[in-house]
């Protein structure tokens, strides 16, 4: 009986011991206990993600640059003061072409002081030099092939079944890959939570049947929000697509952004 154990014998016993441990009910109990400590699960609500498909559309002609949306977004989502925005407004000023130049339009000046959340100061370009000017609200483009979710190494950011692209704050390790991956600059590093942060379409509001804060306070209905799976009568999104010629931002990147823009000019990036 003092025969030394063969390698095969040792490995087989190790393997079967492991299998035994893993299938043992005590292990399952221990697993549940470990996960109770590590993963918090709040009270569920009756919202079913698979039964919705949210979308926002922007009517650039209706945006007046009041910045109430950017201000409301900061309040609603407790975004820290400073250059951190889930949604913001850009002002595009296209100058008249230089006399003698064979151009239809001159340089473009883009500004967004404090994300536009306090309104805009008078134009930096004198009125007589302006060919045209307009405001463009920006937010998460809800990409079909979102580069941010693909870049995340830990599965902390994801495309939820209802169309929102969300960040799991408990899983995010703050590596910042997603912030670099987003071609629309829609992500930022939240210095309070130490995680990546972004527009969640006010997920805590839309799951309760409320509209996102920016849509709620927009005085001109420049932001149109709806549920593609549950269209209402005279659905605002359907009306918007019917009445306007719509575009998306940076379609050449293949991210398939879903947020629709109407009245967009070629200078908008």
């Amino acid at each position, binding site marked *: 009986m003092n025969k030394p154990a063969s390698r095969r014998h040792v*490995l087989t016993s*190790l393997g079967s011991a*492991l299998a035994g441990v*893993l299938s043992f009910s005590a292990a399952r109990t221990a*697993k549940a206990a*470990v*996960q109770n400590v*590590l*993963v*918090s*699960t*709040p*009270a569920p*609500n009756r*919202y079913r*993600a698979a039964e919705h498909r949210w979308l926002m559309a922007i009517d650039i*002609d*209706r*945006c*007046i*640059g*009041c910045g*109430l949306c950017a201000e*409301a977004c900061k*309040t*609603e989502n407790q975004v820290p003061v400073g250059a951190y925005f889930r949604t913001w407004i850009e*002002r*595009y000023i296209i100058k008249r072409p230089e006399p003698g130049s064979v151009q239809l339009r001159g340089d473009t000046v883009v500004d967004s002081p404090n994300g536009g959340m306090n309104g*805009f100061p*008078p*134009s930096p370009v004198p*009125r007589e030099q302006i060919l045209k*000017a*307009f*405001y463009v609200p920006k937010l998460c483009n809800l990409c079909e092939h979102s580069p941010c979710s693909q870049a995340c190494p830990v*599965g*902390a*950011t*994801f*495309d*939820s*079944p209802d169309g929102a692209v969300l960040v*799991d*704050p*408990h*899983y995010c390790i703050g590596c910042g890959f997603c912030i670099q991956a987003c071609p629309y600059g829609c992500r930022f590093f939240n210095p309070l939570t130490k995680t990546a942060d972004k527009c*969640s379409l*006010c*997920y*805590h*509001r839309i799951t*309760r049947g*409320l*509209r996102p*804060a920016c849509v*709620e*306070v*927009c*005085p*001109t209905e420049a932001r149109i929000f709806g549920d593609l799976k549950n269209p209402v009568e005279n659905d605002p999104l359907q009306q918007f697509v019917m009445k306007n010629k719509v575009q998306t931002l940076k379609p050449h990147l293949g991210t398939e952004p879903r947020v629709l823009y109407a009245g967009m000019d070629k200078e908008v990036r």
Partner: protein
Amino acid sequence: MRLFRMPPQIVRLVLLTVGIVTSYLIARFFLTPPSFGQYGFYRADALEEIASRQPVFAGRQSCDKNCHAKALETIAKGDHKTVSCESCHGNCHDHVEDRQVKVITHVTCTRCHEADPARSPFIKQIESKKHYSGERCTECHVPHQPSEVP
């Protein structure tokens, strides 16, 4: 009789690899959250966690006819019918919870109506310095019914 004897350093390497893989498998078994992979490569419980935050803005439907019937009726007829209560009056959450809390209106008319070349012409615009030298817009205009003069 053995034809081939594995060198001891290889044996140690194999054992080390088996040890690492085993500890990885055990850690994965215990640490993967139960909802991970339910919808995709993420924790499905995160959806509920993100949704569980409390909304701040009360929403237009909170200002109902029981309290503000007259204001709602007036505003529905005028040019400001698309403007939500909280656009001008600000976040009304506390007021909806407790009627005693006063709403502080902080948004002024010029935020939307100051003349600006980037503003679409559909919205009426004024140069506030040339328009009126008095104190308040409400001396001449009714915010809930802009076409009306008091």
